[in-house]
């Protein structure tokens, strides 16, 4: 059986297992709350992680390009980028998705074929690392922008700084 057919058949199991393993990286007392993945507004973390994992698995099944993974990965990574995780923990959930894939596939797929498939899944970690860095840099951008928003207007008004005018000055 081709991997793709097998993946389609086991889609639900893979999604659920990936989700549960990812949620298992949170404190035990909170896991049952995060697992209520249908509460879009009162449990945005559980909801968004579930939706994104579903999209990631679907993209794998449909053999989509690597670009199509950016958006669902971004959903998860930017959440974990501001939680109590080290950088490696923040993006390491991809290895848990990989584990879920491996567990479901290994009995029925040729080992070499499986190795090739799972090696390709590794590329998602590199994408996730780029996303993680983007959002961590964003945090520092926000800090500096906040400072500018709080002070820039008054610096201009007090003529402490003088910017170039928007419209060119008339010269004769």
């Amino acid at each position, binding site marked *: 059986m081709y991997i793709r057919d097998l993946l389609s058949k086991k889609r639900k199991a893979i999604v659920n297992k990936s989700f549960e393993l990812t949620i298992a990286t*949170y*404190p035990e007392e*909170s896991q049952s709350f995060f697992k209520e993945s249908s509460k879009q507004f009162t449990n*945005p973390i559980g909801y968004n992680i579930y939706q994104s994992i579903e999209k990631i698995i679907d993209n794998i099944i449909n053999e989509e390009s690597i670009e199509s993974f950016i958006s669902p990965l971004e959903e998860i990574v930017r959440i974990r980028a501001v939680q109590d995780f080290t950088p490696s923990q923040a993006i390491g959930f991809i290895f848990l998705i990989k584990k879920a894939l491996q567990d479901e596939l290994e009995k029925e797929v040729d080992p070499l074929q499986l190795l090739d498939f799972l090696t390709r899944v590794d590329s998602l970690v590199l994408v996730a690392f780029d996303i993680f860095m983007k959002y961590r840099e964003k945090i520092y951008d926000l800090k500096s*922008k906040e400072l500018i928003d709080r002070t820039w207007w008054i610096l201009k008004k007090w003529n402490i700084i003088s910017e170039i005018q928007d419209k060119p000055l008339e010269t004769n």
Partner: protein
Amino acid sequence: MGLPRPDELISNVNLKKMPSKWWMDTLPVEFKPGYYCYGAKGKNLEYVGFPNARDFHVTDEDWKLPEDWKNIVLEGIKQRLERFRSFHVFMDICVRCGACADKCHFFIGTGDPKNMPVLRAELLRSVYRKYFTAGGKLFGRKGGSRELDINVLKELWYYFYQCTECRRCSLYCPYGIDTAEITIIARELLNLLGLNTDWISGPVANCYRTGNHLGIEPHTMKSTLEFMCNDIEEITGIKIDPPINKKGAEILFVTPSGDLFADPGIYNAMGYMMLFHEIGLDYTWSTFASEGGNFGFFTSLEMAKRLHTKIYEEAKRLKVKWILGGECGHMWRVWHQFHNTWYGPVDFLEEPVSPITGTKFENAKSNKIVHISEFTADLIRHGVLKFDKSRNDNLIVTFHDSCNPSRGMGLFEEPRYIIRNVCNHFYEMPDETIREQTFCCGGGSGLNAGEIMELRMRGGFPRANAVRYVHEKFGVNMLANICAIDRATLPPLMDYWVPGVRVSGVTELVANAMIMKGEKERTMNLRMEPLPGKEEQ
């Protein structure tokens, strides 16, 4: 092979492989950058006479506490149990049903069990039990009690500065336990040891000395208002001369000082002046009562009262009839829920009556202050103002209920009524995220400091998530609100989670749409951006 498998590498996060620890056994807390506010500076604590004034560095092993710090805290608890029946009841009656557990935005955003309101309160309750209840003394840990030691103190500090006092949890408590009040008391206790934050104690000292959190001195405030009026003139052709410290004015106008400096609050301050000019209101700004907000409220009730008093002293000095308050959050909580307990009915001002419409604001009979949204909604209701709503047609607006005006004083309809009258495109966020169930911006109660951006981002995620829904569904691009802290904290929150959504006060929207008598043809909004349809001019 010596290397772990990747899933083993992250298994130290949790993955149920770690032995589960009881919450009492997870000390000491780790102070990670991004999740705790910087400690207070000694000079600011000293200026207002706060105890144990010294530069406080959170990550220092030694917090430089007085030798008898433990007794100070325990005596502080004792005094407050005797003084506040509510605190005593809240310490005793929680049955740990968990109704509040998943209602806190910090818990929803982190999954940290100690951010569950029930457990956050339990951090203090366990100490209360140990020293003030027979059960706690007898049964020790099994009775849910624990000794107060330095690690417990640090834990209290860490988690009570991860509560924005938004009171969403209280809404769901079957016993009506107000967890925000527990946080207020916990912070008072910490304040007894000088364990305050820089972001709170700096503004408190500034406000006490200069009259506002930012330390804007009178001449600067005057110039700032005049700068704004220059911009107003450029936009509308109308010259406004802002009345400042005007004795005998009918109304004293008080708003948070954030609106005098920071983007986008400044546009709201311009809006206030345009509105008052248009209706010919006899009002005055004050350079002494130049702060509606009250960061003293995040230190101790006494300090809050000291700062609040200046507003009434100024009302007395200027001989105004009543006070009009701008768009602010906790300022209204102080006014609505604490003011009357502190002072009783104010006996020297008049019951507020709108000089324009004649409306008597009976709800303000006791403390003589009217909310700008009530005042503006009343003007609109009486047809006093004329609007060109199309000037806001580039905006697709949603409204964020600020915690204090909504949950604290039930102000739901007025801002919505105003927005519907000045904007053509208004969409509500989902029901479970607005009105009394609103989610906090993540930066209230003095937690809008820059150094805790990560904490603010995760705490504000439930709010942002609901904004994103209306952004994607209806194209919402403007998040309106009536709170200065919202105006400061929501822009970065939107930048992180929902790029493309900007933030504004409600009065800014009013002033953009308002047709002023004698104005020139407007081509720009208050942000000096072209109005819809005027892009080419």
